[in-house]
């Protein structure tokens, strides 16, 4: 297994964080969170990858055929479901914020300082 996918996962994590820290718009910010999240997909899938492995469907294959790990794929699916919910909720909050405060810029919201 090469080092490359892990580097991609780390890169996505860091670039997502960078996006969140510097964002001037809550919708953009939530999407940066989704980018950060995709690093966990890459990480999980690369952990389960086996060189030369087939898809983990065991009907009609010889016993002992190498297959990639289905567990991490299940984890990733769960991860997608959970995070779709969270991102949808956060985007709904951002929309509502825009309706009430007429801005999506975190710099312009001063109510919660100190």
């Amino acid at each position, binding site marked *: 297994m090469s080092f490359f996918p892990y580097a991609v996962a780390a890169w996505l994590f860091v670039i997502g964080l960078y996006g969140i820290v510097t964002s001037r718009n809550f919708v953009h910010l939530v999407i940066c969170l989704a980018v950060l999240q995709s690093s966990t997909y890459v990480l999980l899938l690369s952990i389960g990858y086996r060189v030369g492995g087939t898809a983990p469907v065991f009907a009609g294959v010889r016993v002992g055929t190498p297959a990639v790990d289905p567990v991490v794929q299940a984890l990733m699916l769960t*991860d997608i479901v959970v995070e779709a919910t969270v991102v949808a909720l956060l985007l709904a*909050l951002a929309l509502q914020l825009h309706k*009430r405060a007429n801005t999506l810029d975190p710099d312009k*919201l001063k109510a*919660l300082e100190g």
Partner: protein
Amino acid sequence: MSTLAPLPVVIPLSVAAILSALNKFVGRRLSEALAILTTIATGLICGELLLQARVQPVIHWFGGWTPRAGVALGISFVIDPIGAGAAVFTSLLVLAALIFSLHYFDTVGTLFHVLMLGFLGAMCGFALTGDLFNLFVFFELMSASAFALCGYKVEEPESMQGALNFGITNTVGAFLVLSGIGLLYGRTGALNMAQIGRTLGGNLDGLVITAFVFIMAGFFVKAAVFPFHFWLADAHAVAPTPVCVLFSGIMVELGIYAVLRVYWVIFDGPFAAHRWDVRALLLAVGSITAVVGAVMCFGQRHIKRLLAFSTVSHVGLLTIGFGVLKEDALAGVALYVLGHGLVKAALFLVAGLLLHRFSSVDELELHGRACRMHATGVVFFAAALGLASMPGFATFLGESGIIDGAKGIGQGWVRAVFVISGMLTAGAVLRVWGRVFRGMGKADDAETASAKKIDEGRETKAASHGIPAAMFAPAAGLVLLAIAIGLTPGVKRAVRTAAIVMQDRTGYQARVLEHAWISVTPAEEEHTPIGKGLAWSFGTTAAALALAFLSLSPYWPTKHVLVRPVAKTVHLLRAIHSGHVGDYVAFLTFGVAAFGVVLAVLIHLR
């Protein structure tokens, strides 16, 4: 195999699903009744599980996927007394919040109850599970309900901002946890905590350290440990009061619970030779959190925000208790969570009462306006004393447990942190009491007025006449319970026994993977805390009272030469609590990196 085990999750989630499906047809009263009955049922089941777990930890394998030859493939609930106790306590606080909200939210639909039940089910599952990925899923379910509850007042922009800050920082924390879980799975091929712990054994390397830092930092975001705590005050300032009760009372503490569980089941083996390095990190982080939270707490005028910062401070104390890595300190943490949760919940409920009665939770606006609410004032005062860990409250038992543990490893200095935290947080709450319930001090105190004022949206119809019993009774009941637990003999011993079970890694593994009968040795008889500990705690309480009265008196030095550096520090601290989510995530990133570097350097040096 216990058939009861899945019910604390299944029942609330099912009722929540039914309620949300029948949203249009279920009236408010029916939905309230259903929610309260469900919570009581869940609490009773958790209580029964607690009784069973005291004999032996209860194991439940979903779908009958029991381990074969010591290898676990299925998903399990592993219910030990501390986990079951956390679930019982969760149900109790949810019940108090639901009763309080009977008179709350005139516009509330059934959706509030749906979210509360979802929150309850997720927290119970979080406390009971024995599977690391399952822990993450319940963490996210709990978070999603919490974000929605936090932003419940959709009409207010602050509310949306607070919920977004909360949601974004906590979700970043969740990804940290998930990455850590992925790394551990890559190393061990297991998701069951007992299995991971056994497979890792005592091997420590870079990957295990990274996984530990990611998982610990992720849960510390939920637990609001410095520098991950920034979201907490925003979330508490905007969330409806009954929701604050749950945030401060149990959700934040469950973050500490998760770190404790993961440490004692998985990481204690690899870090066994490096306990002192983990201790150094945790004691330092805990002390900083406690002091920062306490200082910020004293500088607030928005009562809910003030109480929120007090929670940060007390979480710092809990982190110290965890960092001692000893069973008496662990028992102390459990008792402190109980005692603090009860009094903090009562304080938030009284804040909710004030909001209900006067449409404000601003300390200066409320000056002298609650002078005739005698009973409520007594409850608020008593809860403040509990916050200072006055002997007689459950918090005192917790505090003495943690400090005894710290003394056992030669770190008696943590007493100073407890004194500072207790003095400042209880002092701030007593100052509020003096100003609001006794009319002491001035209404336009320049010092306090410099703090941020946030307009709080009304949560109820104006109530000019009296206080409904359903709002007063839960607050009074919770404080009385905190005193009752503090005065019951044998509580400390029982909790110590539970702590020994929680720390027994090999016993846990044998119980889960081989279904072995493990020996539960009752802790030896506790010597009653007399003398020094009592004197310190009474001293802290007296200091808090003195501080409160001094700050309300004309003699409070605001311009004195000696005070100026303090004022500057406070100003700086306030400035970093910017309300800007980007800053919060920057601090979070810095915190993770710092944790990793410090731990790696400490371990490398040894």
